[in-house]
């Protein structure tokens, strides 16, 4: 009986000691997940620069693209100084002092650049639903869709100053023609560009033509015919004004019927105006061959 009692006491001591020294240590280990071996997240102490080499080789391959012959045909009659003539393909560093102002069509170009580093240090002031019209609103308008610069919404004229760009590429109008008509949209364009030049008098403004709508997606006033009329007005305005150049991006986006090339459209069932990666490559290539 005495022996049994001693054994019982000893067992209790062993159990108590085990629980105290081993069980509590297991709880600490279970609170943490595995450590990362993947380098996808970036700590602030690491400085990762974008690699331009692959993109430069991609640009070289594009020079053999069939779209270049299309561009030559479209620009053979471009003798006036307002339209950027086709020339030797510039290096992608051309974009380093450019800012691209635009709506969701240009937003795709920005994201294409972010993913592929295809436009070097180009800056972007882009926002879905942006137009010449609502770009004139006050910043505190609750319905405004101003783009942001370093996280802060900015008026376009102020954004141009902040980017320090000397070349301002604008592609707006898609969100205007249906609302304001061709003439109203054109008047808004003049007002906006005047505001930009007031704050940045030494920039060159490149008015990019509004790109076409996919066949079957046009509306009553929001259609390719009105887009073409609007683009003609932009071109004429550039002919009459210093500081302006017309860049006919739309010319390389049209099929034989003047609609957006189907392969270039990423939203055939939604709006029929947004671009695929292929269209962005064509766009960039056009810009680099029409830099003068």
């Amino acid at each position, binding site marked *: 009986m005495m022996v049994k009692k001693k054994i019982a006491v000893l067992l209790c001591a062993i159990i108590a000691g085990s*629980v105290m020294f081993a069980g509590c240590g297991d709880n600490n280990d279970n609170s943490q997940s595995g450590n990362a071996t993947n380098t996808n*997240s*970036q700590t602030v102490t690491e400085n990762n620069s974008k690699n331009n080499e692959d993109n430069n080789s991609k640009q070289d391959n594009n020079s053999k693209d069939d779209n270049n012959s299309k561009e030559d045909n479209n620009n053979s009659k471009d003798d006036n100084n307002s339209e950027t003539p086709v020339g030797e393909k510039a290096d992608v560093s051309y974009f380093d002092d450019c800012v691209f102002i635009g709506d*969701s069509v240009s937003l795709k170009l920005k994201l294409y650049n972010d*993913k592929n580093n295809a436009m070097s240090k180009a800056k972007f002031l882009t926002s*879905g639903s942006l137009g010449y019209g609502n770009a004139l609103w006050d910043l505190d308008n609750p319905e405004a869709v101003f783009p942001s610069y370093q996280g802060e*919404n900015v008026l376009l004229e102020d954004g141009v100053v902040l980017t320090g760009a000397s070349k301002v590429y604008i592609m707006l109008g898609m969100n205007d023609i249906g609302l304001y008509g061709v003439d109203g949209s054109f008047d808004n364009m003049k007002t906006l560009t005047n505001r930009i030049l007031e704050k940045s008098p030494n920039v060159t403004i490149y008015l990019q033509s509004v790109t076409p709508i996919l066949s079957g997606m046009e509306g009553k006033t929001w259609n390719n015919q009105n887009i073409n009329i609007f683009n003609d007005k932009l071109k004429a305005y550039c002919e009459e004004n210093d500081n302006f150049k017309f860049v006919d991006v739309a010319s390389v986006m049209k099929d034989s019927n003047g609609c957006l090339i189907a392969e270039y459209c990423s939203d055939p069932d939604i709006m029929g105006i947004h671009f695929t990666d292929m269209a962005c490559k064509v766009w960039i290539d056009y810009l680099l061959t029409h830099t003068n």
Partner: protein
Amino acid sequence: MKRFAVLFLAIILILSAAACGDNNDNSNNNNNGNSVSANKNVELSTIMTDIESKVTLPEMAVYTDVEDMLDIYGIKESDIKQFVAQVNADGLAQDEIVIVEAVNAESAESVRERLQKRYDNKLSQNESYNPTQAAIIKACKVEVNGNFVSLIVSPDAEKITEIYKSYI
């Protein structure tokens, strides 16, 4: 003597049970300020890899340069301990995964403000021309968990958030 031995063992048992209970509380208290920031083994890259393995994400633009955080979100480098940031590359769908571990609570609040502004902009831009995406955005939000701040916009936001929170 026997009584003293039994009493001694009982005290040891009680103390060991109490000590283990304190350790459990500390390891599970992940949603209150300093306890999360003290967890130094959470690698956001691991979280992102896990998300990518379990959720079918669209093609995303991945931002790895801390300068991108300032350019896109206005989040200063000095506020960031580590980050992951990806945005849907097609320009139409509004998928976005941004997770930032801030250096301290004050920085976390600054990051939260910036991501909230980003969220508000996404919503206002899409409400007028893309109501489908606006609905997805409305179901998502900016969240703060200690020094971790996240903006997760996705049709699979719930699943992505669950994976993310399982680590913190």
